[in-house]
């Protein structure tokens, strides 16, 4: 019988694809840079080089993230995925800032770009490779549910657009030279580099910011919050009250903690059975979750006790709905 691929296998496939395609891209762009003295291609190479470094880190991070919890890290290693996301954002911002400064210098002292046709063809083929890689990695991110792989897919798509716009800039430059505006054509390359640098700052900043917030124990997404409440609603007649609902995300793993008040006179065994059912339902509903329910006994200070009525939750119907 064939084994079903696990999320870890999808993640490994995505990181390996990212690693190998990045090596090819870096080699193509480095060779092109030897012939075409284009700042835009230099930026593109810088981005791919950063991508290659991140792919290496991602490959080892994913292996680390998949390790089970141990004595040193009781909640597992899931957060390393967010570290990777943040790192990717920071590296890209760094490249964008450095290249923007270089573009300003080049705008003041513009150079002629050699062999623009080669530059255009290289950028166009790199763009195609980037989009194909983005498509594959995104498919793997959906199958694995990994935020780091999703961030990698977004990065790849962004790189695809960058290479496409650089190849468009080469076309404009060649067109201007053909129309005898070669002086103007010299400005196209640094201008394209500047626009690309500015364009990558915004998504990179967003990526880094989101990763930092996830590192600060951000709550699970709205859809999972709704699932938690749907199940608390489904079991509403099985407990007295619920208190704090605390959730946090660590990579693909979601941690949910809920305090539930149970009837004062219900046995520990019954209460536990009841809450175990709720816990199992929640873990089935919220993918990759680890649910902890804190059982708190009712202090007999509720309105039912004040009126001398029997606690209605002692009757224990599973649910009304």
């Amino acid at each position, binding site marked *: 019988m064939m084994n079903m691929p696990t999320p870890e296998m999808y993640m490994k496939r995505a990181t390996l694809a990212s690693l190998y395609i990045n090596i090819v891209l870096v080699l193509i762009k480095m060779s092109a840079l030897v012939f075409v003295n284009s700042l835009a291609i230099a930026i593109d190479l810088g981005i791919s080089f950063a991508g290659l470094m991140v792919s290496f880190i991602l490959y080892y991070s994913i292996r680390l993230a998949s390790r089970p919890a141990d004595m040193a890290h009781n909640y597992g290693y899931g957060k390393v995925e967010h570290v990777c996301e943040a790192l990717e954002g920071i590296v890209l911002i760094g490249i964008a800032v450095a290249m923007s400064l270089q573009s300003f210098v080049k705008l003041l002292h513009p150079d002629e770009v050699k062999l623009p046709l080669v530059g255009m063809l290289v950028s166009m083929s790199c763009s195609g490779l980037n989009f194909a890689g983005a498509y594959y990695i995104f498919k793997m991110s959906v199958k694995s549910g990994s935020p780091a792989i999703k961030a990698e897919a977004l990065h790849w798509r962004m790189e695809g657009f960058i290479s496409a716009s650089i190849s468009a800039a080469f076309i404009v430059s060649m067109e201007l030279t053909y129309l005898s505006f070669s002086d103007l054509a010299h400005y196209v390359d640094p201008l394209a580099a500047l626009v690309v640098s500015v364009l990558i700052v915004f998504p990179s900043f967003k990526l880094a910011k989101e990763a930092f917030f996830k590192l600060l124990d951000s709550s699970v997404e*709205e859809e999972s*919050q*709704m699932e*938690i*409440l*749907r199940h*608390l*609603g*489904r079991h*509403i007649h099985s407990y*007295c*009250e*619920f208190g704090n*609902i605390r959730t946090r995300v660590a990579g693909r793993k979601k941690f949910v903690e809920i305090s539930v008040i149970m009837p004062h006179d219900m046995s520990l065994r019954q209460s536990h059975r009841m809450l175990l059912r709720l816990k199992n339902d929640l873990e089935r509903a919220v993918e990759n979750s680890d649910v902890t329910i804190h059982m708190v006994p009712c202090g007999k200070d*509720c*309105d*039912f006790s004040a009126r001398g009525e029997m606690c*209605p939750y002692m009757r224990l119907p599973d649910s*009304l*709905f």
Partner: protein
Amino acid sequence: MSIQVKFEKDMAILCLEGNFDETSSRSVEEKMMECLSKDVKNIRFDMSKVKYVSSAGIRVLIIAYKKALKTGKKISLAAMSPKVEETIRTVGILPMFV
């Protein structure tokens, strides 16, 4: 979100306007607790001007239902927009408020 409380005979009406989400849920919960402590039999949430209910809003509605059960009061939701009603129905808590 703006929250107005009106009292009519034995009913407290909470008129909500805006998004019933993380930022507004705490104030709605406080107003709802105030209403529960008053001598009324019914509490109605007038949802006609609510544009969106998030999980934080749903949480307040479940708490309201639980508290009302204890105090022998009845909670109802009125004039929900189709979008809001769909959200509450999807979570499965609509039968608590009819």
